[in-house]
């Protein structure tokens, strides 16, 4: 063991034992972020804050929630919402936060796509981010079941039923997931476990990994410019702050994030207190009843686009049933974003508007996702079913075409 000299200050005492001075440098004051960024670069910090909100509010909900089919509904809607002091506040924050976290995830994700922040060394940032998206989806789905309302029940029923479409093992798999032949107490308790322990643990791990993945390739910037971070950091530390292309994470980058966070919170709390129905569906204030189907069943809004891809195929094509086609398309839709860095064959790292072909692809995708989301909620009857089919096909086509579009773009740009 190294020899310790007597510490002159508390800071020194801790520094001797934990190396805090260096730690703070590495993590905060000398963690370099590009200067040329806009408010979209604050989404990561927003997500961290929202996740913290969800964890904290979740802890307090956990004090009173009862994972039992006979007690769950009343423990939420009576005990938490009406008896516990500020129980309603924690529930509103938890429910609205769960919905808004997806809004910010989508903004974060499409910012990454727009600025090309997933390629040339940043592939693992993208992959870990998509892993987080999947974990959050599982977390959202499992949590939605817990209040044990009608929509909790039937969304759980419909979504677990999807696994029944997998060949050979499908039917048994559904029973295995549910722990019963239908959505029941065993389903509730196992999804409760997933929601409050296993998935949050995995999320925390994935967040750490996502942050770590940023370290080597560094954060992208508004122009997709590559520069020597060490060089720029030296300039900054030498006092040429205005000239340097980088700023330290603390306090410069975070000061901007806090400013964005402040106005975002204004919007968030407006939703929490005054406009929460979009996140707390009225139908879910009817207790779950396995013998009574609600007139309309739809998942939470953030799953609508992939849900619409699932049901967009409603007729048989070439001997394959609509159900199977939908399931295949659904699997494709959920996996395809993960491999985006390898589908984009153009080496350009530029914002989409500076890329001759990719910009059309990007805005087409945005439009298509909005159409899918809206029609994912509407009843799939008549013309709606065909809009769903067309937009699902468009979605598949966009991703199949992406390698060719970007290859052509690389050629065009290279030839200049």
């Amino acid at each position, binding site marked *: 063991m190294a020899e310790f000299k007597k510490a002159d200050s508390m800071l020194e005492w801790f520094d001797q034992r934990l190396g805090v001075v260096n730690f703070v440098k590495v993590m905060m004051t000398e963690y370099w972020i590009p200067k040329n960024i806009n408010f979209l670069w604050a989404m990561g910090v927003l997500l961290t804050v929202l996740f913290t909100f969800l964890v904290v509010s979740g802890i307090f909900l956990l004090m009173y929630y009862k994972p039992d089919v006979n007690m769950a509904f009343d423990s939420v809607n009576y005990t938490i919402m009406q008896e516990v002091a500020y129980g309603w506040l924690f529930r509103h924050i938890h429910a609205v936060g769960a919905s808004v976290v997806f809004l910010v995830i989508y903004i974060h994700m499409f910012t990454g796509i727009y600025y090309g922040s997933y390629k040339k060394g940043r592939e693992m940032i993208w992959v870990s981010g998509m892993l987080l998206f999947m974990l959050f989806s599982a977390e959202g789905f499992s949590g939605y079941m817990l209040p044990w309302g009608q929509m909790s029940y039937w969304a759980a029923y419909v979504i677990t039923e999807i696994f029944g479409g997998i060949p050979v093992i499908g039917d048994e798999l559904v*029973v*295995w*997931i*549910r*722990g*019963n*032949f*239908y*959505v*029941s107490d*065993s389903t509730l308790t*196992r999804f409760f476990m997933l929601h409050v322990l296993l998935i949050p643990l995995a999320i925390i791990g994935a967040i750490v990994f996502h942050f770590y993945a940023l370290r080597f390739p560094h954060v992208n910037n508004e122009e997709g410019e590559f520069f020597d971070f060490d060089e720029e950091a030296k300039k900054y530390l030498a006092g040429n702050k205005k000239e340097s292309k980088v700023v330290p994470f603390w306090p410069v980058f975070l000061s901007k994030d806090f400013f964005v966070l402040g106005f975002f919170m204004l919007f968030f709390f407006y939703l929490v207190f005054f406009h929460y129905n979009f996140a707390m569906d009225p139908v879910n204030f009817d207790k779950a009843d*396995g*013998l*009574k*189907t609600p*007139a309309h*069943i739809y998942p939470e809004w953030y799953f609508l686009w992939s849900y619409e891809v699932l049901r967009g195929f409603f007729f048989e094509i070439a001997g394959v049933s609509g159900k199977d086609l939908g399931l295949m398309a659904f699997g494709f839709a959920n996996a395809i974003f993960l491999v985006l860095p390898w589908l984009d064959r153009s080496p350009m790292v530029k914002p989409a508007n500076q890329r001759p072909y990719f910009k059309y692809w990007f805005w087409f995708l945005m439009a298509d996702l909005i159409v899918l989301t809206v029609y994912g909620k509407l009843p799939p*009857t008549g013309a709606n079913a065909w809009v769903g089919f067309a937009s699902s096909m468009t979605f598949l086509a966009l991703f199949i075409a992406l390698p060719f579009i970007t290859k052509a773009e690389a050629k065009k740009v290279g030839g200049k």
Partner: protein
Amino acid sequence: MMDESRRGFIGKAFGAVAAVGGIASLIAMKKTWDPLPSVMSAGFTTVDVSGLEANKLEIAVWRGKPVFILKYTADMKPTDGRSVKIGDHYFSVMIGLCTHLGCIPAYRADQHDFKCACHGGEFTDSGVQKFGPPPRPLDIPPFKLDGVTLVLGEEGPEYKAMMAKAGGA
């Protein structure tokens, strides 16, 4: 030389034992997720049909779903491939969830048919759709006949014959 290969062997053996332990734990975890024996045995519902009244719908619950059991009156015609003969009487045995969106249709005894209140779908007494949005007849649950007792959840010869007919059609 000898030492090195021995070390290699011990390393591999250690790895193999660790892998066996890991796989065994995974199997145990998978089994913990399995439906409980009580749940599996509750997957079978038995109904004694001898006491049922004709033209009065009996609803049994099987695996959380309502199962319609309807005893025919003398003037109700059995449908080939859908009606079951138990003793001297014909019955309809089917899952009571509308094939449109899963509501539970109501039986109209005077008209010998089913009407779904949700979107107006109608089914005959044997569960064949005759009006509205339902895409197919009411599903028939796997069943087995044991004298006058109906066992839901097991596939008996009558059920298999029905399915064969439906598949061939």
